[in-house]
């Protein structure tokens, strides 16, 4: 349980730094990989389709990013989903609790939940405790 792989797709370097620190504090066994936009993220997945070990268990996906935002990523992901040989939970990350964003997120089946920044240590712990989830999850905001 503790040796989960995280993938954070977010262009905010500071947030990447904060998440790295937070996750390290939760458990040193949890690994985390960063991509600064959706395009880079989807490229990574595409390159590692068959290699379950390199694929993450949890993807944290920011909405606002240059070149390819979160929604576009999810679109691309959909076409890859059938080829991915691993159970993955994808959580949408956003700095706002915009109701229209939440409604839009719930429509997407590939998503497991919705997280509003900031994400605390406890937030990561809760997330892990729910993994793998087949129910809609969102943190408290």
């Amino acid at each position: 349980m503790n040796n989960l792989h995280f993938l954070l797709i977010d262009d905010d370097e500071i947030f990447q730094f904060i998440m790295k620190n937070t996750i390290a504090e939760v458990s040193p066994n949890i690994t985390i990989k960063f991509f600064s936009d959706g395009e880079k993220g989807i490229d990574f997945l595409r390159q590692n389709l068959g290699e379950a070990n390199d694929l993450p268990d949890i993807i944290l996906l920011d909405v606002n990013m240059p070149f390819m935002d979160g929604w576009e990523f999810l679109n691309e992901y959909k076409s890859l989903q059938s080829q991915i040989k691993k159970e993955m939970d994808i959580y949408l990350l956003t700095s706002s609790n915009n109701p229209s964003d939440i409604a839009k997120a719930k429509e997407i089946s590939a998503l497991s939940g919705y997280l509003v920044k900031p994400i605390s240590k406890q937030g990561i712990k809760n997330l892990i405790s729910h993994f793998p989830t087949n129910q809609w999850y969102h943190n408290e905001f």
Partner: protein
Amino acid sequence: MLKRLLLKFVKYYLPILILSVLAVLWLYQKEHKNLIAIQQDELSNKKQLIVELLKPMIANLYYWEQYSFSESDFDPENNAHLDKKIGDFVIGMDSYSQFRLIDLSGNEVYRLNRQENGKIVKSTSLQDKGERDYYKSTTDLKKSQIYLSPLNLNQENGILELPYKPMIRGVTPIFDKQGTKLGIVVINFSAEKLLDLLKKDNHYSFILLDRSGNYLVSKDSVKEFAHLIPNSQNITFYEEHPGLGDSLRSKESTSSFKSGDLWIKTELDFINELSQTPLFQHRFADIKTNNKWVLLKHIESQVLNARLKSEIVTILLINLLAIMVILCLSYLEARSDASKKKYMQALEVMNRKLESKSTELENKNNALAIIQNKLELRNAQLLDYNNIVAHNLRAPTTSVSALVSMLGEAEDYEQAKSYFPKLQKVTHAINTLVDDLLVYVRILNDDDLVGMENIAMEPLIEASLDLYVETLDKETIEVRTDFSAWNEIKFSRIYLQSVIQNLVSNAIKYRDVSKKPVINIRTLWENDKKVLIVEDNGIGVDLDRYGSDIFKLYKRFHRGLSGKGMGLFLVKTQLESLNANIEVASVLGQGTTFKITFDNYE
């Protein structure tokens, strides 16, 4: 008002007046025609009466002409045997006042008189009539000729008998069997009864004239027989009415108007009328007379008008009534016309007011529509602003709080120190964002205060290109301009400069290095609106992918090219704040076209 009233009155009354006049004229004509016809009938009856009364005398004269007198019958001493025969005859004929035989020398040889009491008396004082007209005119009468004298007054011994006795003498010659003339028979036909009959039953005055116009019957009895009575004022009808003679003499039966009086005339020519009797018709006898009478009816104008008086009064009353009714109607109509006119005027005023109100309303509507557009735009801008604050501001602030809490939990100074550059970066990002937001908010707030001026396009574009002169020269980027459609616009100079700088900057930044870059700036008209086109042949942008985001804040679509994603966001905000809008068309690898449409710009 009074003039209109009068006009209306005349309009309605004139036809009635004309009809009335025509009716009166028609009535007059009809009345006169009737009157003339009736009077002619009456005159014709009178004429017939005269003829009928004279006929027996003709027959009697003929009888005595045929009677076989002998020479001795003309001897007063030897003709007493005639008494019985002639006496019986005269008794039966009560209109005969005398029966006489006169010999060839003019002496009466036999005479029977009818006295006032009707008794027949044989006169013994026989007179000499040799000098009388009737004797003289009959001396040359031939056999079977019968003579009728004019109607005159009886004379005895050369003196008019009083009271006047109007009479006609019938004369016929007597011949013996050998054809020798013995003398004449004279029968005095008393015309008193005839004249009485003629004077009877006349509604209008009846006049009888002889052939010379002497009065035989007149309503004024002094005029009757004035030509026979000595010392009387003898004046004929034609002398009394000089104008009438010609028109009355023109025909046997006729009528004539003179000074409003109506005259109806018919003639009685004895020879003509009596020749219809069988005696003359079959030439048993021959008539000789000079008598030609004129029968006249005279209807005076007052009498004539009186007859029509009631009808005319009726017509006058009808006219009076019509005048009153028409006056009332005209008054009402004129008044209703006036009020109608007033009403129409009021209506027109109302209409004009409504029209102006409607234009006012329309203007207000237009103003409202403009305001609504502005509000919608402002709403969208506020939503943008909201999103920017929510996403772009919240992210770094949460980062700050996370970093701060991390700082608090830092185990040593070295660890804490490693967080400072991160904090610095975040605060810098926040500052930049706040600065950008300020620019944005200023545009939103300033839109009404921004100075509008007439801007010549060419120098503005030149100035904008000058900023990039180094790049343009070094990279040999060709800039083509065409301002033939329009070259001047009223807009905010600062905004337009900013817009053009951003678009040119974008065109330079996203040029395609594999080909000679060209930037095309031109003006044109579209749907009566000014349009500015900025076109490049650069790398283009995938609008299917980014179309909805291209004008949004901090959106970047090209990896490896610097840009913070503020330019197009500003361009759109500035244009929209002044009622212009921007559209984009792009094909990857071919280029991008920005089209700015200025709504309602001079």
